[in-house]
């Protein structure tokens, strides 16, 4: 692993994490000894293509990986404490003030049956013990902070009555509501139009700076990474290929795969560049390495 070490004692430290989907005699490894560190107040990008396991790391950190997925080795240290073996009750206590999530799809991540106001207020009441009026007032404040217009009206509305960009703002407000130390942002702008994406990215960055939270920013988009992340981890086949400062990764990538990804990204400012698909030989090599890893680490299966 390369790159400058994190500035402080990491707030999140994923150590040699192994995770596999098991069931009906099949055993599919998803994460193969992934490790990464996030310092306080750092925005850490986690980049990879589909199947790289990036979303699964985010879910494992929050303890909400789907049921057939099993952590078969390694640890996730949140503020020095391993959260992979927490009971459900302990995990719940960690949410809200400890960790939060900005989900991928704003259209489906708000409960269609409840008003926006109630969905913001319920976290405040659960984790900060606020009473109904106080939570309502704080929800209004939060909507103001995420630049929702006419927030009084929005509080009384149902999710289907507001636009996708507005819903993502509401979800950002919920994520930051209890001032968590770590937020997992799981492809938070993938479902949005590009003009809305820019506003939402700006908003996430501003809230992060204001609250001093760390963010694990999961994305497939190198452009977004380059604009918002301090450090980046590149993931393929559940393995970390390289980690480092964003500038170093984007401008002087060390791993062939990172270089190939950058070469495969279309850019409107360089129309002359031919897009170079990730070479098949490289993909084959990476897959072979992953299989070799499985063979060598059979004990985790």
């Amino acid at each position, binding site marked *: 692993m390369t790159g400058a070490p994190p500035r402080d004692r990491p707030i999140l430290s994923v150590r040699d994490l192994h995770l596999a989907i098991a069931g009906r005699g099949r055993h599919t490894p998803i994460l193969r000894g992934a490790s990464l560190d996030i310092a306080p107040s750092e925005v850490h990008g986690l980049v990879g293509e589909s199947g790289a396991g990036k979303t699964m790391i985010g879910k494992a950190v929050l303890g909400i990986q789907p049921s057939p997925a099993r952590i078969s080795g390694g640890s996730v240290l949140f503020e020095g404490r391993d959260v992979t073996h927490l009971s459900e009750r302990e995990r719940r206590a960690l949410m809200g003030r400890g960790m939060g999530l900005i989900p991928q799809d704003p259209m489906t991540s708000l409960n269609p049956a409840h008003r926006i106001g109630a969905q913001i207020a319920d976290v405040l009441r659960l984790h900060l013990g606020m009473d109904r009026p106080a939570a309502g007032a704080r929800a209004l404040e939060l909507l103001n902070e995420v630049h929702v217009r*006419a927030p009084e009206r929005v509080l009384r509305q149902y999710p289907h009555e507001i636009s996708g960009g507005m819903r993502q703002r509401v979800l950002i407000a919920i994520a930051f509501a209890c001032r968590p130390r770590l937020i997992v942002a799981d492809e938070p702008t993938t479902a949005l139009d590009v003009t809305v994406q820019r*506003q939402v990215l700006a908003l996430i960055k501003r809230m992060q700076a204001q609250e001093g939270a760390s963010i694990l920013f999961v994305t497939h988009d190198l452009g977004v990474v380059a604009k918002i992340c301090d450090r980046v981890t590149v993931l393929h086949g559940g393995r970390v290929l390289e980690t480092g400062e964003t500038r170093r990764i984007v401008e002087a990538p060390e791993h062939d795969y990172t270089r190939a990804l950058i070469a495969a990204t279309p*850019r409107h400012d360089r129309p002359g560049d031919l*897009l170079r698909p990730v070479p098949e030989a490289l993909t084959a090599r990476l897959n072979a390495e992953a299989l070799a890893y499985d063979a060598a680490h059979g004990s985790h299966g």
Partner: protein
Amino acid sequence: MAESVLLEAAGLRLSLPDYSRKPPFGPAPPVDILHGIDLAIAPGDTLGVVGESGSGKTSLGRTLVRLHRPTAGRLLFDGRDIANLTEERLRPLRAQFQMIFQDPQSSLNPRRRVADIVAQPLHLHGRAATRAEARRQVDALLERVALRPAHGERYPHELSGGERQRIGIARAIALRPRLVVADEIVSGLDMSSQAQILALLRELRRDLGLALLFISHDLSVVRTVCDRVMVMLNGRAVEQGECAAIFASPRHPYTRRLLNAIPLPDVDPGWVARTADNQLGEELSMNVKDSVALVTGANRGVGEAFVRVLLDRGAAKIYAAMRSTDGYEAPDGRVRPLALDVTDHGRIAEAAAECGDVTLLINNAGVNRNRPISDDDALRNARDEMEVNYFGTMEMCRRFGPVLAANGGGAIVNMLSLLSRVNLPMIGTYCGSKAAALSLTQGVRAELAAQGTLTVAVMPGAINTRMGDMNPPPLEDPADVANAALDAVEAGEEDIYPGVMAEGVSQGLAADAKAVEKEFAAYLPG
């Protein structure tokens, strides 16, 4: 554009029934999807169509291959109008224009094997006499899209996303069409599959001489594939031209915003911070279609043009406000004449109560005494001009602000002038009133943004009306100005300078204000 044209659309409109608003008896009301699209594709040409969700780009693609029947306009394929051909008459022509769909999962019949899917068009159009011949062609097509013949034995669900999209391409080129419409064909794919598909598309285009209409939300992808590009917003083409020109200097504000929003993979920590504070919030913009507009000074000049353009763009209702409605003939049933003198503040309050459904307020009324400051009546002139241009606008904004808020935010368009920015000798008092109105507009914008109201300042140069006589040429067409203002409303743009002259001056002001001021000061009407 090349001398020959393969596909040409002129004034293409599309309305589809809106089932969410269907009454219990009778048909669903139509909703307008495309508002008069013009485009032309030459053989071997590539046109990119770019837009965000709801822009109508997918509907456009489907209309061009006649999956939808256009409601109006012409659609010429190889010189023949196919807009209203019946499906039976169209069928023999279909081999020449094919489509690749966005979602290869849904566009391949899950119960057919890949070889059957690719062979189907060959059998249907008699391109393969025997089974063996079809199989030979299918294998060649699969190889063409970099798949192995063995893939033909599989079912779609046994393939990866990228492979499925290759099958979609193979099927589309099976009949050797002259035009292919590709609708968001890489949007569901990983970066590496995307690059492969785009490379394949380039190759095929080169080898087969295909004309390609490439629909995408991603400007970067379009740039790598296409020679020309069309930018769509709310069912309209806001800008169209050579990629090189448009990407280098986009003219339409929406194109600019779209380009600025793309995060390129260059490290730029300031990029996020450069999103201005007032852009952090939800974009303020509204559809002109179905809006309820109020236009002051609606009986002449730009006001009249606004009414016409609003009707054309599907406004639900227009209050045409003027001092006196005597002798005014409404051009359409949707236009309601309204007697309103903007210097009569009591009447403005009444009007705000009467017109409780307004969502778009167009403050167009203005006066220009056309006299220099040295004139004997300068004080009275200045007061008259201020009364209409400043106080009238202010009072309208004040009274209608709550109305707009109650209707969900809406928009205010204040018709100002280039002379709000720079003074012109001989009409100094007018320029002063317009400058005050600009400052007022900024104040209104800041205050009403919180309730979701967009406030647009329109600052054209001279307009071809009686009032603009004294201004420097060239003269702008009032309808162009009105359209530009409504484009700004739909794009959420705040200050616009419609016309070549106005745009030039605003760029000049940004570069060197003093020089422009000097140039204007030296200008004397001839």
